[in-house]
């Protein structure tokens, strides 16, 4: 049984295959998924810290004010939008649409572009609402 399992062919050899938009986006979907899962662990503990008190909440606040923290958050935002956009692409495939080689290529590039645009918009929105004096809808009602 063991020798039979070991003799099974392996596929595909990533070191030999030339990177293509399809394969690169596919593995990126998986990697962003893992990054998002780790982020969910962080969010759960962040929510817990909010109810525990300032001594638990302030370290989070400090971490996200550092450049490493900000970079992690920007990276996570991009991962979120990438996984979301490519997820919609996957749902279209599940429904039986978009399998033509040309379509797969342009939908892939569309996902890349959309994820970057969504990330930019989200951070622009976040920067706009990062001040208490701002009157944008997101902060109305929560301004202390």
């Amino acid at each position, binding site marked *: 049984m063991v020798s039979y*399992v070991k003799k099974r062919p392996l596929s595909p050899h990533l070191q030999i295959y030339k990177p293509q938009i399809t394969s690169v986006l596919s593995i990126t979907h*998986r990697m962003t*998924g*893992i990054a*998002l*899962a780790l982020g*969910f*662990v962080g*969010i*759960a*503990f962040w*929510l*817990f810290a*909010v*109810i525990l*008190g*300032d001594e638990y*909440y302030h370290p989070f*606040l400090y971490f*996200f*004010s550092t450049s490493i923290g900000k970079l992690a*958050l920007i990276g996570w*935002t991009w991962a*979120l939008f990438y996984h*979301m956009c490519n*997820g*919609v692409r*996957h*749902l279209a495939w*599940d429904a039986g649409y978009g399998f033509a080689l040309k379509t797969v290529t342009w939908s892939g590039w569309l996902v890349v572009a959309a994820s970057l645009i969504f990330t930019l918009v*989200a951070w622009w*929105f*976040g920067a706009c*609402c*990062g001040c208490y004096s701002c009157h944008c809808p*997101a*902060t109305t*009602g*929560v301004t*202390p």
Partner: protein
Amino acid sequence: MTFSTKGPVGRAKGLGSAHEGTTHWWLQRVTAVALLPLTLWFVISIAAVAGKEREVVISWFGDPLSAIALSTLMVAGIYHAVLGIQVVIEDYVSCEWRKLLFIWIVRFLGFFLSALAVVSTLVMVLIRFMGTD
């Protein structure tokens, strides 16, 4: 007319080669669709409370409707993540007992984190309305 993705034999046995039929695959899609609007709402929420004190976070997520949305997001998101990581483990871990062990650990972590998030959100509602802080 009832719609089924299974063949006649599959319908009779109710199971596939993974002994669970299409449940895993299907739930991955159900949670994915649920997460689409919730994610957009969550990004807006985070943008609104990022870098602010606890009181702001509690007044945002402590609103009952927001608390329901946040709880749904966390449970659906963590469930989606558990299903996804299970596939990654099945693909890359060939040793059978390690594979099972990792999947067990990921599932336990998933239950724990869901409870942590839901309870924390509920307490935010309580703090907002009762001011136990």
